[in-house]
């Protein structure tokens, strides 16, 4: 027998194949108890399959995995008594009310009927779901459903909690509530394994992040380490008055210039040097969340190319340098803009996208593979392999 391990999760050479697809291809993990391990990767990267192996739903083809010191194959029952799974597709019962969902789980975990009902009520109120107690889950909004889903995993506090894309498809407010809950859970000593497609989420929650691509872990470290390997964030501002563009560029170059790497694009429309329209690798994030037409003054940029025609929009790279100081530099730059009398309509500070992380780490863009890790049973309209 292997010596008892202090690790919450330990895998070595974990492999899981579905037909030709190596969904998990030699994953080695060591997760310390009471920490949050993030899995970051695009759809089909192998995140869900890894979690399903760890939660004893799938048998690995080779390699070993131990959860709380128990082998997931030979001691599956012991593992199941220690873990909870919140799956990617709501692991609650659509045709039951919020209260009945939790009641059934509490009963299965050994609560007597009155105590089970009381436990359901306690959890509902803790998660702000009192009003949904008697509502069928199929009538829940996405955010409420997710909250119930997480609550359902906590009827008995697990030693390890698996959260498979807990906030995919949620609005920002619901997302931040889920995050708050995850932090509270970790504080009580539960180890959390979290998959996500959002770098920001991993950044917010995870102590360590494993970037996973085509079944392999291609980077594993703290979020700072990861970001240092990727490089830069982008600060985007929108001016109230395009005429102030000159001042704005000067201030930003002064504040972010020396170590901030303002990438220049002087050629396109003859705008001021030093500041370029948005254009990260892949050109995908374009104008960011701010909407042209907010103030009605800047529709003029439409006739030319896409965003580089907008004289009110500015964007610059801010390297993080691995010390987290990029945010501070950006804040200072914004304050300076205000001090110099530049009126801003809007600003955003964007982390490197997952795509940029991938590009930096792998040299290729994040791509979605066939959903081999999913249940093949459910009719899956996206079942085709659209990767590579």
């Amino acid at each position: 027998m292997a010596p008892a391990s202090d690790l919450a999760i330990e895998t070595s050479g974990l492999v899981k194949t579905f037909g030709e697809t190596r969904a998990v291809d030699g994953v080695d993990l060591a997760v310390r108890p009471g920490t949050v391990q993030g899995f970051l990767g695009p759809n089909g990267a192998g995140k869900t399959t890894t979690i399903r192996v760890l939660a004893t739903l799938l048998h690995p083809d080779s390699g070993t995995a131990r959860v709380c010191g128990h082998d997931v194959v030979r001691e599956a029952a012991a593992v199941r008594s220690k873990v909870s799974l919140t799956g990617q597709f709501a692991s609650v019962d659509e045709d039951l009310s919020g209260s009945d969902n939790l009641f059934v789980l509490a009963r299965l975990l050994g609560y007597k009927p009155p105590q089970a009902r009381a436990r359901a009520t306690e959890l509902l109120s803790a998660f702000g779901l009192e009003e949904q107690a008697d509502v069928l889950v199929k009538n829940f909004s996405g955010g409420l459903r997710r909250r119930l889903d997480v609550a359902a995993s906590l009827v008995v506090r697990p030693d390890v909690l698996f959260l498979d894309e807990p906030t995919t498809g949620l609005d920002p407010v619901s997302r931040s509530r889920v995050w708050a809950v995850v932090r509270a859970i970790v504080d009580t000593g539960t180890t959390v394994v979290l998959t996500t497609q959002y770098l920001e989420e991993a950044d917010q929650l995870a102590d360590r992040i494993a970037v996973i691509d085509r079944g392999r872990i291609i980077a594993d470290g703290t979020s700072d380490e990861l970001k240092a390997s990727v490089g830069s964030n982008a600060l985007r501002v929108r001016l109230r008055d395009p005429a102030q563009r000159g001042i704005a560029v000067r201030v930003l170059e002064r504040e972010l210039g020396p170590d901030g790497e303002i990438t220049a694009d002087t050629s396109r429309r003859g705008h001021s040097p030093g500041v370029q329209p948005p254009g990260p690798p892949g050109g995908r994030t374009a104008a960011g969340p701010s909407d042209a037409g907010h103030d009605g003054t800047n529709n003029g940029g439409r006739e030319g190319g896409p965003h580089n025609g907008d004289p009110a929009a500015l964007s610059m790279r801010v390297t993080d340098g691995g010390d987290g100081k990029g945010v501070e530099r950006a804040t200072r730059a914004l304050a300076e803009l205000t001090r110099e009398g530049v009126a801003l309509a809007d600003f955003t500070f964007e982390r490197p996208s997952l795509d940029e992380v991938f590009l930096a780490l792998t040299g290729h863009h994040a791509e979605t593979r066939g959903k081999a890790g999913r249940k093949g049973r459910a009719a899956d309209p996206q079942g085709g392999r659209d990767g590579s």
Partner: protein
Amino acid sequence: MSGPGTGGGGSVLALDGDGLDAAVRSALRTGEERPPRPGAFAMCLIFCQRALFKIRRDPQQVFDAVLFPVMVTLVFTFLFGGAIAGSTDLYLQFLLPGVVVLTVVMISMNTGVALNVAVSSGIDDRFRSMPIWRPAMLVGELLSDVVRYLMASVVAVLLGLLLGFRPHGGLLGVVAALAMVQVFAFSLAWVWTALGLVVDKPQTIMTLSGIGVFPLLFASNIFVSTHSMPGWLQAVINVNPVTRTVTAVRGLMAGDPTAWHITTAFVADAVLIAIFGPLTVYLYNRER
């Protein structure tokens, strides 16, 4: 889904409510308690209760279950009864026990559909990653269906009484017959659950079980006695579990049960469970 990196800006991060936080922490502390786990049979009953919650929420499915026997009884008694048995009243005495069996056979097909839906939803992943006896979910679902079988068969008997069905076996005979029907339906349902686990769409199960169920029902003695049929067909019909059950049920209701009929009916049930029970559990436990 939207592309990666759409988490626009950090402006909403300050919403972590302290109140929510404290309540969650307190609820987590309660969760430290780990009561002793229920036994396997208790778990089956919990799953049964869960399924009954759903019936309570959606009484429509009970209505559907009850409508069918009413329709069949009326159609067969009044449309075909005279032609088959000489008088509708005589035919009703013969037909009604068969209708009860027919009804539960039809309802039991839903079990496969329900199971197919249940195992392709996320809740099944949760159950299978919990420390619970795995077949409990299956057994619980099947037990809850007994409630529907019972309601439908009672309705069929009551309607029969209204139309002139007179069981000489008395109350005791009818109750014993109904008990027998429930056991049969529970046993037969394992066939549909196994089917529900190999087929990928609920509609396919309806089609397949529809195809399978008609020979089962018509190659039986539900509607007509087998005496006028050729010998080889009689042989086939006699091993049909439906025939075994209908014969026993008829005997019990008429007040002249024979040990042979009852025993062979139970043997048929046992054979169904012995084959399709383990098969279903195997299919359920296999990786999905």
